[in-house]
């Protein structure tokens, strides 16, 4: 036994030296740019503080109590959940459908892939501004179509019941191309022989899709759901130019709520509390997801 131990022991010594050289810088950077700001935000969230000087009005957990009692925060939280639901229910199937159509080497497939992927390349702010125009009741094409069918000019972004739908449309438009690309990559990695074997055995197209494509694509689907959820939770820079969270705070996400009610109001303590809640939601989701759904990867 003892003779066997020596060689791994040497290797461990080498690994230790490597770790001593490469780990401290990473830990240092992670501490400075992630752990410290996080701890600071958690600390600030216990104060009534306007961001000037040093916080001294200690509130304990009152910022959190107020946050959970705030109707607008509840709306923002529910909006985040709805964006997740719609992303998974509309965006991902749409992305998968497009991927199935465009993964083949058919004529024009590459061009269409590019076209559907383009919105993803666009900055969120630019997408928000473009759709602000598209949904405008005076000049926008959406309202023009409604009027062509004899309707009144439609101001989607000014309507408490329609503004959120408008936001969902933009989110789906912008991100389905990204998920389509993930699926195309996944589809191209599936062994052709599986399909050939299934065909020889007389499997129908639907059977092939259900028993080969979906299981083979499962890792990619899990990944795309993960991106979708985290992206939905962090949605901000599209909301601000599109609706600013309005009308009547109906289209805020948690992050735009943090900006509108924390930063612009110089309530840094309160805003930090939102940040902490958002962090806890994201981390909880990420850990559970990794633990239970992505453990094979």
């Amino acid at each position, binding site marked *: 036994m003892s003779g066997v131990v020596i060689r791994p022991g040497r290797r461990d010594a080498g690994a230790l030296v490597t770790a001593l050289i490469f780990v401290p*810088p*990473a830990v240092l*950077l992670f501490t400075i740019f992630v752990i410290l700001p996080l701890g600071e935000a958690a600390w600030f969230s216990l104060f*009534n503080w*306007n*961001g*000037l*000087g040093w916080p001294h*009005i200690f509130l304990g957990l009152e910022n959190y109590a107020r946050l959970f009692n705030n109707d607008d925060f509840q709306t923002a939280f529910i909006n985040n959940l709805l964006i997740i639901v719609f992303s998974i229910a509309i965006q991902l199937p749409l992305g998968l459908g497009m991927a199935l159509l465009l993964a083949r080497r058919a004529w024009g497939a590459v061009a269409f892939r590019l076209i559907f992927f383009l919105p993803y390349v666009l900055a969120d702010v630019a997408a928000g501004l473009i759709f602000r125009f598209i949904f405008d*009741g*005076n000049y926008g094409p959406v309202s023009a179509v409604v009027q062509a069918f004899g309707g*009144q*000019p439609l*101001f989607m*972004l*000014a*309507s*408490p019941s329609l*503004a959120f739908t408008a936001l969902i449309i933009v989110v789906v438009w912008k991100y389905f191309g990204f998920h389509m690309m993930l699926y195309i990559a996944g589809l191209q990695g599936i062994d052709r022989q599986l399909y050939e074997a299934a065909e020889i055995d007389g499997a129908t197209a639907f059977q092939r899709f259900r028993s080969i494509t979906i299981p083979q694509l499962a890792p990619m689907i899990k990944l795309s759901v993960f991106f979708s959820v985290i992206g939905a939770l962090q949605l901000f820079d599209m909301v601000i130019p599109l*609706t*600013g969270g*309005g*009308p*009547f*705070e109906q289209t805020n996400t948690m992050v735009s709520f943090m900006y*509108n009610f924390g*930063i*612009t*109001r*110089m*309530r*840094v303590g309160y805003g930090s509390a939102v940040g902490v809640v958002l962090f806890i939601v994201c981390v909880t989701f990420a850990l559970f997801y990794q633990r239970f759904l992505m453990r094979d990867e």
Partner: protein
Amino acid sequence: MFKTMIGAVSIAAMMAAGPVAAEANTVIKIVHVETNPTEIALWNRIASDYEKLHPGVTVKFQYLENEAYKAKLPTMLQSRDRPAIIYSWGGGVMRAQIAAGYIRPLGPEGQAVMAKMIPADAHAYEVNGKDYGLPFLTSEVAFFYNKKLFAKAGVDASQIKTWDDFLAAVKKIKAAGIIPISVGGGEKWPMHFYWAYLAMREGGANVVQQAETGKDGGFDSKPFIEAGQRLQELSALHPFQPGYVGTMALQAAGQFGDGKSAMQLMGNWLLSTQATSSTSGKGLPDSDLGIFGFPTIAGTPGRETDQLGGVNGWLITKDAPPQAEDFLAFFFQPKYQEQAAAEGDYIPALKGMTSYIKDPIVRQIADSLENATALQIFFDQDLGPSVGRVVNDVSVAVAADQMTPKAAARQVESAWKDAQQ
């Protein structure tokens, strides 16, 4: 990562070397949000004139976009790289900056300049009996109207004296098939002008100061509740353009400039934004533009000469070089402010500048400011951002019938109480 670290170390080394290199020269850094090109040209000329007379001093005007400036300022004030002079709207933000110890009161040189300011403007920069900054421009909120559309609807603007006259005029314009008022409800603050003016009419010019003392329920009191009720009287007539709760302020200005609405309650900067935001880029010609003050309400203490407006100025930060105040004294020389007035850049806060203003409408506003019995700073600035933004929120919510006037007043009061902790 190694590269990142080398980068970080070299940046740190550069930062350490920075102050040594700067010692040879005093730099007065001034941050501002103004975009008017003639105004910036004038400022740069003042800076270079000053530099010629004071070798070894450099004056640097640095522009930041409005929202970015507001978001960045708290951090800038706390850094060692703090600008010497900052742009200010006065009010609650300024008081918070003073309370945190970042602003230096004026010395004798600044106070000598302050004595030459229009009293209402000087008053806006006085906190606890001390002068903290020098105002340079005043703005006023009033109704701007389209003379052609008023004539078409058969309305005489000079006859609009009371709130009832105003409501009657709105009805008449609406009946003529014209949109009476355009407002940028999407940004909320344009709607707060209505709530603010109505509260000032209902409760008198010092309605805000009284509410701040907490008397009769503070902001949850009769004048503010009645202001909401009056605003709902107006909105019940559907006077605003369709989709107004989503319209941006500049879009609304453009609609007015395009002649699509008969009037707009706005600060005097509308004179330039109605042109730049219009489809043609020219807006309404001066001959079609008219102005009238916010109406009075029968049986209430508010006077027609009590004005809502803004007083923007410069604040000197703590540890700023002594030349900063000297430069401001230089900046406020009449010859420069006369030029600003003549070019129509702004209405100077310095006394005796009105006669240099060429534009007849600006002149009319300047006259009304000089004769104002009170100048209340925009509520959303005066009350500070944590309360001011609530005022803006409730103004739109009340106008759109999403909130009762009583609930609105109560929300403002509770935000005010929170801010007093």
